[in-house]
């Protein structure tokens, strides 16, 4: 009994030291100078632009990674070639963005799309512009949806899909009416993780953004920028806002989830 209590205290203490105290401190520091100055610091034109840019990038990255993630999971678990290519190989590839440092991702994008790169001749600018930031964000948040959906698909099995087929449903109808509802929580959780990662990404975005004020500065870059310029209060305020968005995403998920699966 005491051993278990000791373990619990240790676990909670660990969480507190690593997570709760730092984030709490940021929130505390944010509101130290008063709510008015916080409001002022997150409503400057630069902050508003960073806020919308971050949401825009997250929305695009989440949309792309959700569609592609579900598609990848379907091909991997249900696809006709699943027996020919070892799934572990594809799954290892899928984990690559976890393994590669975001800075390396950013640099590799510059090498491919930047001046003198293989794909430098595109009709629109990629590096130091929105497409580059989106590419970097998509890359680093790529695995989440597929990673969440793959085990769910395996567990659900394909009998319901076969039953739908014998009842006359086309593949498309089967996907929308049977498969997607069956994997919806996997997808939802994947979307939440992707959103959190997309909003919080710093390294890869920092390399490709070019930090054009009011154009390619995301929330994380704004925090760094203010921090470098000794605007600590401003940095805390922006950080708190970032944390708030992340919390809101998680909260939304928790609120949606409890409905008992029928």
């Amino acid at each position, binding site marked *: 009994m005491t051993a278990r209590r000791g373990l619990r205290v240790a676990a909670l203490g660990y969480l507190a030291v690593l997570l709760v105290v730092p984030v709490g401190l940021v929130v505390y520091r944010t509101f130290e100078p008063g709510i008015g100055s916080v409001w002022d610091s997150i409503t400057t034109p630069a902050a508003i632009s960073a806020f919308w840019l971050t949401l825009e990038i997250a929305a695009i990255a989440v949309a792309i990674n959700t569609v592609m993630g579900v598609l990848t999971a379907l091909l991997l678990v249900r696809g006709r070639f699943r027996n020919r290519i070892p799934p572990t190989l594809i799954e290892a590839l899928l984990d690559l963005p976890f393994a590669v440092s975001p800075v390396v991702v950013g640099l590799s994008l510059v090498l491919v799309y930047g001046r003198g790169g293989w794909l430098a001749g595109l009709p629109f600018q990629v590096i130091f512009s929105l497409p580059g930031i989106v590419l970097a964000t998509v890359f680093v948040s790529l695995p989440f949806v597929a990673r969440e959906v793959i085990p769910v698909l395996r567990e659900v099995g394909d*009998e*319901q899909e*076969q*039953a*739908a*087929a*014998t*009842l*006359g*449903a*086309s593949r498309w*109808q089967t996907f929308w*009416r*049977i498969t997607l*509802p*069956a994997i919806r929580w996997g997808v939802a959780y994947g979307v939440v993780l992707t959103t959190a990662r997309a909003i919080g990404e710093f390294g890869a975005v920092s390399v490709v953004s070019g930090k054009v004020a009011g154009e390619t500065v995301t929330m994380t870059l704004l925090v760094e920028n203010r921090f470098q310029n000794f605007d600590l209060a401003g940095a805390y305020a922006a950080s708190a806002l970032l944390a708030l968005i992340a919390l809101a995403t998680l909260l939304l998920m928790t609120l949606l989830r409890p409905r008992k*699966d*029928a």
Partner: protein
Amino acid sequence: MIYLDAVDKRFGDHRALQSVSLEVPEGSLTALLGPSGSGKSTLLRVIAGLEAPDGGRVIIDGEDATPVPAQRRGIGFVFQHYAAFKHMTVRENVAFGLRIRRRRKAQIDAKVDELLDIVALSGYHKRYPSQLSGGQRQRMALARALAIEPRVLLLDEPFGALDAKVRADLRAWLRRLHDEVRVTTVLVTHDQEEAMEVADRIAVINEGRLEQVGAPRDLYERPANGFVMSFLGPVARLGEELVRPHDLRVTAEPRAGALEAMAERVVHLGFEVRLELALADGAPLAVQLTRDEASALEIAPGDIVWVGHTAARDPIAA
């Protein structure tokens, strides 16, 4: 009517079906009976279009259905583990095929009500599958399959996941249902009792081959080979022949064609008596006698008796 013409199916090196030809008469209830891994489920899935055969043809109602995908074969399929649509109510499950066919709502409602009545699930419209028992889920799955008015109903070990009591009830119920609805039905089972009780015809399958097809009684009484004989009921080995334990006759005196044996145990099982013998070569042999036969013989352990088969049937080589 379903006609299978020399159907072949391989999974890698494994030949799951080897040139299986079978006719399923219109309106019949045919059981595909065989041990697990015999290929019977694969054959059912080939009929359904859920597996493509590597050779041969599937003909449904005179039309070559081999290239037709499962969606357009007009078959109803019932899975062992129900394959219930978990996120849909009973009503939505049963209505699924009709909604795919874009039937009018009034028509769908009427059909769903009718079918839920037939499968004794009236009043369960708004339940979810998780709120049903196994037997109820399987009846819902059956209603769902019947809703599209299939040309053929295919049942893959439909009672395999249910407990014994529910299984027995559902078997009898399925037989009555078939007598009412009369849709050509193929049932896969590894349980010979289930096949004998429910089916008009039994096709025995072993190692991807069709061993014998016929009425349950014909198969029991005139099995084509030792496998069919031993799969359909208890067998005893008498010298080089296989016989049913109740087709053996025991006498105290020697007679032509009978073998000498020693009684080892006499087991009284109510109406019947099991006589455990040892043949001259030491092989054990169990004989089933009625109580009257046993008391007339007055056999005690250690007695020497003579045993041979009664029936004037062609012997089946062991």
